[in-house]
């Protein structure tokens, strides 16, 4: 009794909330790149208009977003680290994983470019050059999808950057924006998703230096959190979201989002895998 009253009291304490509050809603744990690039601001109102279901986005790194799903604190996830997503499904926390859209990563660095990588087409060669010159490199270091991609690229380039830790290789354990802010302040290189880079305002001397390598593909996937594991999960609404974003309407909405005429995300939904 007391508990119920306490709970109701908290809900009432000023939280008969903004007019926008939806009766039906899902909580979507996703990445900072999708929110900060403005994609959600463009597509989610369309979804809500079509289905009457609101979406509350908690934007985190992919690793953290998956953890939120593991605890049952979100109904669906939209993330970008395929290996981690498949682990999540294999552990029985949810799924199946559906691929939704992609964009790409880019290598950013100071315009002075002390490692001389500008215009390179081979990202592995560029990373080897940065390591050889011991040029400052900022790593997310936060188990995000971008961090996972960065570590994979180093590994493919045959370099263990962690040996440069504390010197030229700087793990900051923060999101994409703070990493860009840090790189701008320290004139360092870093890997960024293109969307966040395009929307980022505090560039100072930073420039896009390397792009277009096939290994820089950034694939996003969507998953529902398992109702068997977490009975509180909103199965129907979460499935409606997944059906929509992988269906014609959602895919068209994604393709329609542009910044200064430039398309940021490319829809490529496919059957579950």
């Amino acid at each position, binding site marked *: 009794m007391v*508990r119920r009253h306490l*709970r109701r009291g*908290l*809900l009432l*304490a*000023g*939280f008969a*909330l*903004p007019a*926008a*509050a939806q009766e039906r809603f899902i*909580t979507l744990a996703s990445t*900072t790149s999708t*929110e*900060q690039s403005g994609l959600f*601001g463009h597509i989610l109102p369309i979804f809500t208009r079509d289905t009457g279901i609101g979406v*509350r*986005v*908690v*934007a985190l790194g992919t690793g953290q977003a998956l953890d939120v799903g593991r*605890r*049952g*604190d979100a109904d669906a996830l939209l993330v970008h680290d395929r290996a981690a997503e498949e682990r999540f499904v294999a552990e029985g926390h949810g799924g199946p994983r559906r691929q939704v859209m992609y964009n790409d990563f880019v290598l950013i660095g100071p315009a002075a470019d002390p490692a001389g990588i500008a215009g390179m087409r081979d990202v592995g060669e560029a990373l080897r050059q940065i390591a050889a010159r011991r040029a400052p490199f900022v790593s997310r270091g936060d188990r995000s999808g971008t961090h996972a991609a960065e570590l994979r690229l180093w590994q493919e380039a045959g370099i263990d950057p962690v040996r440069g830790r504390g010197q030229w290789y700087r793990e900051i354990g*923060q*999101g*994409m*924006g*703070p990493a*860009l*802010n840090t790189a*701008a302040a320290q004139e360092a290189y870093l890997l960024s998703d293109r969307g966040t880079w395009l*929307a*980022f*305002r*505090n*560039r100072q001397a930073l420039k896009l230096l390397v792009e277009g390598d096939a290994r820089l593909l950034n694939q996003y996937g969507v998953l529902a959190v398992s109702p068997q594991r*977490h009975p*509180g999960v909103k199965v129907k609404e979460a499935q409606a979201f997944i059906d929509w974003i992988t269906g014609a309407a959602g895919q068209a909405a994604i393709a329609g989002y542009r910044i200064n005429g430039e398309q940021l995300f490319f829809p490529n939904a496919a059957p579950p895998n």
Partner: protein
Amino acid sequence: MQDLGSAFMAAIALVRDGDAGMLAILGLSLRVSLAALGIAAVVGLPLGALLAVARFPGRRAVVVALNALMGLPPVVAGLLIYLLLSRSGPLGHWGLLFTPGAMVIAQAVLITPILAALSRGVLEALWEEYAEALRSFGAGPWRAVPTLLWDGRFALLTVLLAGFGRASAEVGAVILVGGNIEGFTRTMTTAIALETSKGDLPLALALGLVLMVIVLGVNALAQGLRDVALRRAG
């Protein structure tokens, strides 16, 4: 310098245009912090008063603990409440994680020790003046608590303002348990953190300026009310 200048202009524009998004965020910030202050006051002030008048074994330990809790790192408080309110946690069935209610709890937990510890200090001094008189009426410590709280109300206003200031300036705990959801749990401080990470430093600072002006306004209002009340009482 240019950034500071444009932050100032942006702050003025935000206020002048009555930016709807910002007003909603500001409203939520105030509601959350005032609700937390209300809860913390109901718990913290009587606790502080009781500690000021009562003498019992372990009292010193409680006082030391409260003083230490004033420095509780917000992230730690946030984490604790996150794990309690998570669906996998003991209070998961409340469904409060990532709602304003969770943010109220987090801020209340952070500022209750502040209100208790500061009010104890204020009221202890008052109690030394009053103890004789109150005892001569045969009032025990339990009876003395409401009297002390009433007589110390002007001094306690400052205590409340300190709590409110801490609550409204806090970001680490509310971003964890609220999730910084646009239009639902985004407060002034989490919006500032977000704009900073998007690299829009002037807008972030502009929001900060607006928040500071609001907090200044609340303080001035409280001070004004106190002066009026004092004059009437005096």
